């Protein structure tokens, strides 16, 4: 049963990440490589909030959300007028910046969470405690899974309200034709900033749940591999609607689990997993470019 709970916790985390990234790629038409960076920002904010700054779990979760949202300006403001390849390159620069910051903001003499040692660098942060909500510590895996899924459901509700409102429609129009949208009096730059704010804040919330579950985080959370994994989820599952990212998160989460039951040695399984991801992407691009359950075909 614990194994199922473990999978459900991860599904909640990756579903939130994929839903957020879907807002940027599937709704704005901007291919972002920085999403894992915001995942890491949320994880670090939660870890520092609870371990170093004495915040309770809910405040740390709010801190993660706000940090992700505010630091989204790192991507949205410099890329105000960028799209296509230029946006991809700028988002990659942001990802590298976040990763380098997490890796290098360390001093062995200073206490964790101070200006001298904010992230503990490559050593990461250990001992992150499980969330305590309304006086109840979520120490069991079942409670943690419920927390992860309920948070994912709330995020799904937020995404649903946004995507089905005129806000979501305007994002799609902007994705189809930015010039025509602008000429109809819509402030396309503001819409982009808002979409990135929501997406990055959601990624940070996912990071907070992840940190509280695994109790250990390090800079690899912000790696390019993570960003590519997240992009693979929405490419495979599909974009431009709500269900595509959920399907993608489920598929990419289940692939390594299937290999686990095939008695393949771990080292080989890791290689096979990467090959399967690659094969799946090729097949999707060739035969179903809108993904398994999406309604937007990336050009």
């Amino acid at each position: 049963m614990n194994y199922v709970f473990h999978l459900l916790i991860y599904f909640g985390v990756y579903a939130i990440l994929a839903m957020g990234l879907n807002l940027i790629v599937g709704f704005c038409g901007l291919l972002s490589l920085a999403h894992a960076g915001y995942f890491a920002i949320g994880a670090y904010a939660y870890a520092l909030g609870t371990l170093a700054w004495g915040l309770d779990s809910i405040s740390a979760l709010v801190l993660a959300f706000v940090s992700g949202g505010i630091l989204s300006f790192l991507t949205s403001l410099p890329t105000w007028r960028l799209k296509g390849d230029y946006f991809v390159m700028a988002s990659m620069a942001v990802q590298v910046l976040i990763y380098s910051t997490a890796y290098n903001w360390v001093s062995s003499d200073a206490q964790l969470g101070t200006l001298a040692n904010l992230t503990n660098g490559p050593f990461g942060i250990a001992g992150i405690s499980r969330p305590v909500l309304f006086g109840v510590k979520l120490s069991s895996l079942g409670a943690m899974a419920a927390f992860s899924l309920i948070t994912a459901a709330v995020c799904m509700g937020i995404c649903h309200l946004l995507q089905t409102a005129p806000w979501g429609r305007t994002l799609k129009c902007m994705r189809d034709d930015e010039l025509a949208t602008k000429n109809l009096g819509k402030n396309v730059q503001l819409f982009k900033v808002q979409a990135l704010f929501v997406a990055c804040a959601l990624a940070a919330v996912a990071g907070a749940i992840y940190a509280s579950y695994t109790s250990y985080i390090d800079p690899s959370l912000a790696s390019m591999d993570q960003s590519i994994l997240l992009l693979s989820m929405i490419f495979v599952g599909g974009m431009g609607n709500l269900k595509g990212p959920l399907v993608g998160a489920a598929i990419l989460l289940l692939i390594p689990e299937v290999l686990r039951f095939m008695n393949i040695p771990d080292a080989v399984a890791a290689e096979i997993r990467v090959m399967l991801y690659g094969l799946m992407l090729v097949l999707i691009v060739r035969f179903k470019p809108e993904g398994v359950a999406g309604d937007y075909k990336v050009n």
Partner: protein
Amino acid sequence: MTQTNDKDLVLEAKGLTKSFGGNAVLKGVDIALHRGEVVLLQGANGSGKTTLLNILTNNLKPDGGKIKKYESLGRTWQDVRLFSSQTLSDNIAMATPRQSGENPIKAIFTAWKTRQEERKNESDAKAIMRYMGLADRTDVSGSNAKIAEAKFVAMVRAIRAGAKVLFLDEPLAGLDHVETEAILETLNDLVKKYGLTLVVIEHALNIPKILKIATTVWTLKDGKLTVGTIDTADDASGGELKSWLKSQAIDGQLNEIDIPGGAHLTIASRKKDTPVVLEISDYTVNRGARPVISEPISFALREGDLAVLEAPNGWGKSTLLESIAGLIPATTGTVKLFEEDVTTTPVWKRAKKGLRLNRAAGTLFTQATVIENARLNHVTEPVLPNLSNRKAGSLSGGESRRLSFETVLNNPEAKILMFDEPFQSLDITESARVRNSLSNNKITILVSIPFLINKRG
């Protein structure tokens, strides 16, 4: 010109200048636009009409000059630019200004209220669609809209966004006679009933039609704008089509073939007793799952033939030509090139056999220069000699059309040429030049055009 006073001024511009790469396109343009005017903006290809429109609608910065706007402006594009993922109804609904549901905080925290507002907005959009006679097309996506529907929606969308002054870039381009009349009637209504001001760019063929509603004519020439009378329009492919084709036929006789679905093929034989080089038999084509040419068509062209395929919009002219070229697979039937069945032959092999297609748009390598585009088509004669080193993507609409046409027409490896709507967007001089070029090239040529007249002359 309409009698007006300053109260009626909706847009004023003084001394507008604009250059591209040292070429001055606008050399001090002055404009005074008044409420209720319908202006026809005319000029030769490359005279700067679209540049001026882009400047006036804030899509391009002028190098010099001042613009004062007293009313909100809107525009449409020659290539329409509907939102392809949205339904026609949503294309209109999204344009509504100040929607509370566009604010993400309100969309989340006052969802009930914003949804109520959105329902009203959608119902208004559907009412507009009914008014335009498109009640049964509200749920069609922008990418599947017919050209006339798309043009209607693009106009109404701009008005829905609050435009009181509407700039229309070739609103009649690509429309057949019935669609043209319907658009003109709507434009007339917009001016008479709703007091809109219109500035219309049109190419030579459609100028007489716009003149039915125009009150003022602006002519752009040598970078200057003058208010005056217009040139008389030539009809490159309507009434004069038949006489032009007759003049091409060796015996003055035309071979006329009715094609299922309301299309018509007119063939002028320019050489005697030549072999068949292109043969289409029992041909139908789908685009994905959608049948486009569903009734089987058959025809054959001989070496040296000049053929014109006239068909209403939506018939599938472009689809047919693209399919013959190998870009879209045939659903049924066969294509034979020089008596060889090439129905399943890939496009590059058909091109190697000498079959070339000039599509209506997107035929240039935009990052390559003019001369590079010509050389990629093995053309050594100078095309647009003054612009040889300019990137094709920076050319004006007219210059792009010319480069695209000339490079395909003069390709020495071509044996059968197909041109999709080569007269579209051309002024009188360019239309005549295209006809002359088609006349002078004696290889097999198939040209598609929309029906421009009610019944063929």
